[in-house]
């Protein structure tokens, strides 16, 4: 009997060795199951991931803030047919999502973070030749930029406004820096969150090309622009100004509105020449074409020679005014980085830093392109404060419905001169959002709280 077992074992082993001894076995078991699928293994693969503008650009950025701004209003009838997230955001309710609901504004941003982290994690494993170094750099820089962009959108929507005194202990966002989905990340402090954004952006500056090959891809110009925006939020006007300058040194093109056709559904066949980085807000019907321009805001366009009302807005036969040029060629709400914003950042920083002349010069440089040729009378300001007030009004008008108003409300509310209480009336009930209200931080979606155990915002 022993003999038999011995024989069986030995013959079994021989048979097994026929295959297992073969080194080709691993290669055989490593074959791609589907030729259309690839394990990212080349720089080209990663570059193609960065070109997934469905993830990084189109309807990709949080719009909850924009839903809550005073850029627009909607009618009771339209409000009633909106989704609960839209209805609740509109009236700044404490709870804004359905119970257990996943919210794109949160999850899309983290999908971008996952993509960026996947690219950053894969990069060191990839063999490349020395003449691919610039491609390697561009990929790395792009991933860092996209991650910073996603983190900034999250901070802008899901944390309290920045306050340098408390930022070290205020709640920030989970700073996911690895593609491993099993790792848990708590909410970092708000300061750490901004630091990470700045760090990613500073690093990518050294890696990215000055101008992008596609408007949807990151570039040095876009990174300077975003740095300028973030420093403005942090109240660091020197740095914001410096980065705005650097940005404009790469691209300072402004569109002459005299060359645009008023009322055109799509003002630009492709992209505005002012566009430095193209992106759009996550899709909400309430801020889409049915939204009406806030009447107080519209009143600010009081100069008949200002071409913007014709280009910006759509005039319904009912007399109501809707949005127009804020939608890109795909019909999405634009929220990228654009030279007009950078001009306004620059002017504001100069005014705040007391450089009255340059502040007004930069503002006028922008506005002259918005006026009928030959009719623009340059703005004047007696004091830096006067300049700042004028610049902020023009900022409000110029950047309507581009996702920036929410961030401006958050930071300007710190200053009593610019603080506003938002008011809305729905079905005869008046709702208000006072400055610095805890509702300036959106609730984090339930699944995130339940599954990763991070802390919810108190509203």
């Amino acid at each position: 009997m022993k003999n038999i077992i011995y024989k069986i074992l030995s013959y079994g082993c021989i048979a097994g060795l026929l295959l297992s001894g073969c080194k080709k076995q691993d290669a055989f078991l490593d074959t791609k199951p589907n030729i259309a699928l690839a394990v990212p293994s080349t720089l080209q693969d990663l570059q193609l991931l960065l070109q997934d503008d469905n993830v990084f650009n189109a309807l990709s950025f949080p719009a909850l803030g924009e839903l809550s701004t005073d850029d627009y209003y909607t009618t009771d009838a339209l409000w009633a047919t909106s989704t609960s997230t839209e209805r609740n955001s509109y009236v700044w309710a404490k709870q804004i999502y359905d119970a257990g609901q996943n919210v794109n504004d949160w999850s899309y941003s983290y999908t971008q973070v996952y993509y960026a982290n996947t690219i950053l994690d894969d990069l060191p494993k990839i063999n490349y030749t020395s003449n691919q170094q610039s491609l390697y750099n561009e990929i790395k820089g792009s991933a860092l930029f996209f991650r910073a962009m996603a983190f900034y959108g999250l901070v802008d929507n899901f944390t309290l406004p920045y306050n340098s005194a408390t930022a070290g202990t205020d709640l920030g966002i989970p700073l996911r820096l690895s593609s491993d989905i099993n790792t848990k990340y708590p909410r970092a402090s708000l300061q750490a969150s901004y630091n990470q954004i700045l760090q990613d952006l500073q690093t990518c500056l050294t890696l990215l090309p000055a101008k992008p090959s596609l408007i949807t891809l990151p570039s040095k110009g876009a990174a300077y622009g975003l740095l300028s925006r973030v420093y403005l939020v942090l109240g660091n006007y020197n740095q914001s100004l410096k980065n705005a300058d650097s940005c404009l040194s790469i691209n300072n093109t402004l569109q002459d509105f005299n060359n645009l056709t008023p009322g055109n559904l799509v003002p630009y066949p492709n992209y505005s020449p002012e566009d430095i980085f193209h992106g759009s807000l996550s899709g909400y019907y309430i801020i889409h074409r049915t939204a009406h321009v806030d009447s107080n805001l519209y009143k600010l366009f009081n100069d008949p020679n200002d071409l913007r009302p014709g280009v910006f807005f759509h005039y319904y036969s009912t007399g109501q005014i809707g949005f127009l040029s804020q939608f890109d060629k795909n019909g999405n709400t634009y929220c990228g980085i654009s030279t007009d914003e950078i001009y306004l950042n620059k002017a504001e920083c100069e005014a705040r830093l007391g450089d009255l002349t340059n502040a007004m010069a930069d503002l006028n440089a922008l506005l002259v392109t918005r006026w009928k040729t030959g009719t623009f009378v340059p703005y004047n300001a007696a004091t830096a404060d006067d300049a700042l007030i004028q610049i902020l009004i023009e900022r409000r008008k110029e950047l309507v419905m581009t996702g920036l108003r929410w961030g401006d409300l958050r930071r300007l509310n710190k200053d009593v001169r610019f603080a506003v209480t938002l008011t809305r009336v729905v079905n005869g009930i008046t709702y208000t959002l006072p400055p610095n209200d805890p509702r300036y931080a959106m609730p984090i979606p339930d699944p995130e709280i339940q599954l990763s155990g991070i802390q919810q915002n108190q509203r």
Partner: protein
Amino acid sequence: MQLNALCKNGPVLVTGKPGKPLLTHTTGMNISRQTLLCMKVTAFILLAFCMQVSATTLAQNVTLSEHNAPLEKVINDIKQQTGYSFFYNQDWLQQALPVDVQVKNAPLETALKICFANQPFDYAVVNKTIVLKLKEKPVSAPKGDIVAPANISGKVTDSAGTPLIGATVAIKGSTKATITNEDGEFNLEAQVGDKIVVSYIGFRSFDFTVDRDMPYLNIKLMPGMSGLKEVTVSTGYQTIPKERATGSFVQIDSTLINRRISTDMLSRLEGVVPGLLFNRNTINSASGQIDINIDGHSTINANDQPLIVVDGFAYDGDYNNINPNDVESITVLKDAAAASIWGVRSGNGVIVITTKKGKRNQALKGEINANVTIGNKPDLYYNPQFLDANDFINLEETLFNKGVYDNALSQGYLPVSPVVALLGEERAGTISAVDANSQINAFRNIDVRNDLTKYFYQKSIDQQYNLNLRGGGDKSDYYFSFGDDHNRANLVGNSSNRVTVNSSYNFYPVKNLQISAAINYVQSTNQINNTVSGIATTGYGSIYPYAQLVDKNGNALPVVKDYAQTYVDTVGGGKYLDWNYRPYDELRNSDNTETSTDNRINIGIKYDFLKHFSATVRYEYEKGSSAYANDNNLSSYYTRNLINGFTQVNSDGSLSYPVPLGGVLQTENSDLISKQGRAQLNYNQNWNNKNDLSVIAGTEIHETINESNYNTVYGYDANTKTSQSNIDYYDTFIGLPQNYGTIPNSLGYAQTTDHYISYYSNAAYTYDGRYTFSLSGRIDQSNLFGVNTNQKAVPLYSTGFAWSLSKEQFYHIDWLPLIKLRATYGYTGNIDKTATAVTTIRQTGGAEYSGGQYAYIANPGNPELRWERIRKINLGIDFGTKNNTVSGSIEYYLKKGIDLFGNSPLAPSTGFTTFYGNTADTKGNGVDIVINTKNINTKNFKWVTNFSLSHVVDVVTRYGVTLPSINYITFSNASSIYPLAGKDLFGLYSYKWAGLTHSTGDPQGYLNGNVSTNYAGIIANTSINDMVYNGSSRPTTFGYLRNTFTYKEWSLSANIIYKLDYYFRKTSYGSSNLPWSGNVDFSQRWQNPGDELKTNVPSLQYPPYDTNRDLFYANSSILIDNGDHIRLEDITLSYDLNKNKIRSLPFSHLQLYSYINNVGILWRANKDHLDPDLSTNTTGVFPLPTTFSFGIKANF
């Protein structure tokens, strides 16, 4: 005394009076195992003859004239002259002495006496077979024993009590022997102390010593190693006697396979395999695919179909290519002990198909089978979703007056029905009211189903021809078959033809070596030219009931399809191509062909060595190709519509054609290449005649590559096979009427590769035929799961135990001579190819903004991926009463699906909101009961009943994602799983119903516990717990009842299939879908207060519609019907002619048969006369028409 001493060694096999042990089985072996192995094949024939006829006298005469001739030659001479067969071991002939014989017209008996005078053989004539048997070496009688004469008599039976006719009862060491008669009885004069050997082919011989005063002996013989009566089951890796199997195997023999008539093999399994359910009410079934579950459903998202094995290798090709005429037998492996040897592909059960083979040392034998099957046209009037023309027109008029069609009419080009068009013209004043009315009224008596039935459907005619030849010499055997199938479908224009050529050869060049080679070639051609599915009017999904397709003279008439008729008539001022859609012309213009070939080459070497070992190496190569070509010529509507839609009018009024004037050829080619190799070591040993050990171990490598590509060319000319290449796919064209877009450019390529490396082993040990222990294990590695999972692969294993209780010493229940208990435990596996271990990306084009190439992450990496596992515990009893009057089995099983693939929620900050991985579990249990009875068993008339009852429940125990209730309620059906923990896998859900309102006939549901007509509120607020859970949408209790009557040469068999304990959602009408998606329920609707007492069909609602009202009603519990039904599946009648009976017959056996399939439903629980076997998710499915077959089968 000797008797007692022997009792310790073995079981009682011979009893005198019940309860008193008399004699025991000893270890003597009179016929060696090798002999038995060789005899196995012919033994069956022998037995068949034995059963029928008692020993005949040797009436045959022979003439022989031989000097010093080999015995083999003489045997052949006798065979030729008498037609008798010989039965012996080829090896023995080496010991034969040359023969001298000179007889003329002498009785066979005389001739045999002379021929075998000095030979070392005994012979016996049983029926028409001469059985040779090696003489024993003489043994001297033991000294000192008292020699006294003793007359012994008794009866020899098998373990089930069936008499064994022709068994040899011989005195060891002498030439004295006798053969049992047709009752299995014998009488032999012996002496006390003689050793008597009782032997029978295929059974273990049994010996005992003659004692004084022996009573009448009842001798039960146990099946031997190569038991001829016993059933063997094939796992694909080895063939084992069912006696020694622990697992749940169902063996389907050729009689049962041939009971039904069909082109494909698998459909013949319906209603004959306990626990095997054909899911007829699914989308897969409705689209013509086979949808089977064995013992329930064991996965959620992975492949749910059983693995098909043909001649030992997993079959990767199209199962329609398996010609049932080539199939010898089928074994269905159901539990873990049976199936786990197939590892990760065994979770849904395994169907092992063994094809016919040649036989060594057998003269050429042939078989011809031809049959024709004629099927009725489908019953189009069955469809409950139909509104007759009168109701349809009345509704159109009402809706017209409410302005529903105003927009379409004002656009001018949008399709409106002819009635709406007439109403529009009447309103516009272009036609008088009288004219409009008379035209409309003429429509009221038309039923489009008449034209459809007449011109688009036909009687199906399936013809099947098959010829096979087999035979073999000393060093080889062969099998060759040719099959030809011509099927005309019941859809005009659809047909399929199949040619199959199979051949297999086995060579035995030297002793112990077998070389096999087989080639299978299949070619099939399908014409798919029927266009009935395209007749629907765009946007409505159906055709208006008063459509006329063909005029009185047989000319095709146009119907409204994509555009309004007035638009089609006037567009382009006649310069455009004819834009009419004429269904009957489409049928004739259609040229849509699919051709496929499938080739399999199979080679193998088997070598026996070291007495108990053998090694096999086998390799199979399969290549299947299919080519699909749809030639839309310029006359076809598809092409005309496409060309017209892109036609550009130039500034000078001339036309240009971005889509060239010519045909549009759509092609798709796909290839399958499968390579499988296997090295296996077999070990078989029996020792002391009590211990049987059989072990196999092997390794296997398997590669399957599927490739496909598709393409569309424009300007195609079928005559010259040319097309135009300069097509502008990039620019956007603006054409009529509102066509805006680019020319479709379908060009694609896909390839998938599956790689497996597997190691497997199986061992079975049987002690004394009573106890069997089995162990089986397999490790699979594949390219699907990445190297990590492969490196820590754990085996899917099983173990089983079987106990033949009836063979125990203490077992004395005479009326129940067979009781076998089985228990098995183990794991089978399953696979889901959609998940991968590493992060994979997929490249594609058309990015949202750039429009260019980009890649997305198709699968986040998941190094933790594992195979799905199904744990199954199976308990079974096999039983048989005396003479097998009642036999059968009862099995109970418990299943657990572990690590099933499913979705579970993930913290969205990971980048994903759901995770697809091994996160779901299921559990199930079931019973399979099989009872076979021989109700009447006389010589001329026999009545056999076969009955099975299966009950199976599969429940989700863990699933990570819970959807809003509307998903379960509106999507749950028999075709797809919406898993909900705690509920049936195929659970059916609905909204709670609260009747119709009295005053308006509105349907009512429950909102927060209160009766409500707030439909939006009900839909939004019905929680998972508020849903009505109706039960499973797949049958949970099912089985068959088959009665077979045989009277002389006539045989009549009828099979009844029943499916119980399940539910389906019937369709009704919804106001917002009217009049197009009509339903017979419309006539039952609430019309006046009080109607709510006699109907549950809501009142008609006019615009503005509340679509939520329709949605609520369509998914309310009132529309859930019980699916229980009993169906008379088929009836078969056959008449057999045998050369034994009719000498003039040119064939050895001839059978005439007829068969009726899909006879009809005998009973159904639902009151609406619906066939619950139809998928409620697919429109245009009709009950399977009854088919009638006639055929002839001849053996020569």
